[in-house]
């Protein structure tokens, strides 16, 4: 059994990984941690070094995740992609055809005052409407079973 986990090193992703480890322990699955670095939308060349840093950070996160999973007695590997997170995850499932894809839903905790809150709310709503968020995009298009873990 092969389980693919969208992993970015965030708190939610770590919780999701721990949850999967608990849930599927008896199936002895192979865990594939997939991380996607988004291309910077920069119109200059200035951000190249920063982008590489970000990439290395993500790789580090993925390796930590793999270490954790192997420590728990799982087989685990990582996959790093560059580009649009939604599309790359979709491509990853097509490429490796896992039995299950796991996504931790991002939590949106609006902070700041009333203006900031309502602005954030408005923009997030637009996100959901336009399938902007990774989970809604994949829910529509993924060709393998999909498990979405709500953020606590």
């Amino acid at each position, binding site marked *: 059994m092969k389980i693919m986990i969208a992993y970015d090193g965030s708190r939610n992703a770590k919780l999701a990984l721990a949850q999967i480890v608990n849930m599927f322990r008896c199936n002895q699955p192979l865990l594939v941690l997939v991380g*996607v670095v*988004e*291309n*910077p*939308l*920069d*119109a*200059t*060349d*200035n*951000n*190249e*070094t*920063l*982008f590489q840093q*970000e990439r290395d950070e993500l790789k580090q996160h993925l390796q930590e995740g793999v270490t954790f999973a192997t420590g728990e007695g799982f087989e685990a590997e990582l*996959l*790093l*992609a*560059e*580009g*649009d997170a*939604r*599309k*790359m995850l979709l*491509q*990853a499932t097509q*490429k490796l055809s896992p039995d299950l894809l796991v996504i931790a839903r991002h939590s949106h905790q*609006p*902070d*700041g*005052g009333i*203006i*900031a*809150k309502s*602005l*954030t709310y408005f*923009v997030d709503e*637009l*996100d959901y409407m*336009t*399938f*902007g968020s990774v989970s809604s*995009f994949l829910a529509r298009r993924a060709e393998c079973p999909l498990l979405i873990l709500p953020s606590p």
Partner: protein
Amino acid sequence: MKVSSVFKFRSPEIRALHLTWIAFFITFYVWFNMAPLASSMLKSVDWLTPDDLKLFAICNVALTIPARIIVGMALDRFGPRRVFSVLMVTMSIPALAFAFGDSMTQLLVARLVLSSIGASFVVGIHMTALWFKPKDIGFAEGFYAGWGNFGSAVAAMSLPTIALSMYGGPDGWRWAIAQSAIVMAAYGVYYWFAITDGPDASSHRKPRKTAAMEVSSWADMIKLIIWTIPLVGVLAILVWRIQYMGYLSVTGATIAYLVIVAIVIYQIVQILRVNLPILRKGVPEDDKYSFNSVAALNSTYFANFGAELAVVSMLPMFFEETWGLNAATAGLIAASFAFVNLVARPMGGMVSDRMGNRRFVMLCYMFGISVGFLMMALLNSSWPLILAIAVTIGTSIFVQGAEGATFGIIPSIKRRITGQISGMAGAYGNVGAVVYLTIFTFVTPSQFFYIIAAGAFISWVICLVWLKEPEGAFDDEYYVSSVDRDIETQSLKNSKT
């Protein structure tokens, strides 16, 4: 980065963003301070004709392209803070010269020199890029571009009122323009002291300097050369126009033509110098990119930003003459076209991000522009004014959204040369403006709108055929492309020696 974070004035990068968009805003305000005052100028200066004003409008966008090249070099040497400050202070001189110009030559030359101010866009983009992380940069640059472009709207809204009511009299327009120039110079001085190049001034990140864009195949090099010629070559149109109207002798025109030809030849030589060695060696498969996408985006920016610059320059007069309004009201209404920038341009970038299919979004926008300008071509005095305003706003939502969508695709064509690709596309916006405004000197406003609609439609066809959806890649088969790796090892070697 959330939209709401633009209110966190305490964080240094947000402060830098605000300082920089205001600078860009002021430069745009000054850049477009003539169109809304055109009719006042005609009334108070008896030797000016409407044709002269159309010529000034072309001059107003002419030298932006060479200025961009010079500013680009200066950015690498001095960093955006100094360049922006110096640009604002020096450009207030031709603005003042224009304000108090009392001869045709003085007005013409002042406007020509002042057109360099359009290069401010590039400076601010670089400044923004120094302050923000790759994750937030798209939003920050969209915000910067949208609010900065809004300067032309505020100019159209406020200048006639300032000229007519604050100063009044036949020389009101002079003082209104002078005032904007003085504010700009003052802000330029303030900017020098208020900001640093990036979070820590010591780490002034330099883009790798190359003389010309790299391409991946011989055919692409030919295309690049063909697409490079109009960048400076378009100025020949302006020279011809000035000579035709009798403000330039044949000798002067010939000299100008020769200079333009020399610059074009120099650019082609640079392309050959950069690319011949690369192509002879052969470009590895994983480093190839298609120039067709670049060409397609050049055409979209020609058809959207070029159209915007051109339309902003003629719209106040159009409303004034068609519906018989006074200058202040016409300026206010014409400003509705540029006013939408606040939301429309960032929205174009956002839609492009959200929909997950950037090519499709671009195509929709370009088609929308064609339809919008077709509608504007049908406007005449029998239309109720409110409907005309609605059509104008609707069109400009598409025009500016397409600008945002263009800059949403540029970074994903080939990341290593993003700076050059965006520079070329940006310059094509000005090429578009020069071409459109030159055409405008021969036609009526409604024919003019038909032509812009046709331009947008042609660009739509080019996109349909040439533009590719940007692709991502997986690490295990694609680390950084092999050429990137070579460059890295080279620079490591260089830093060790």
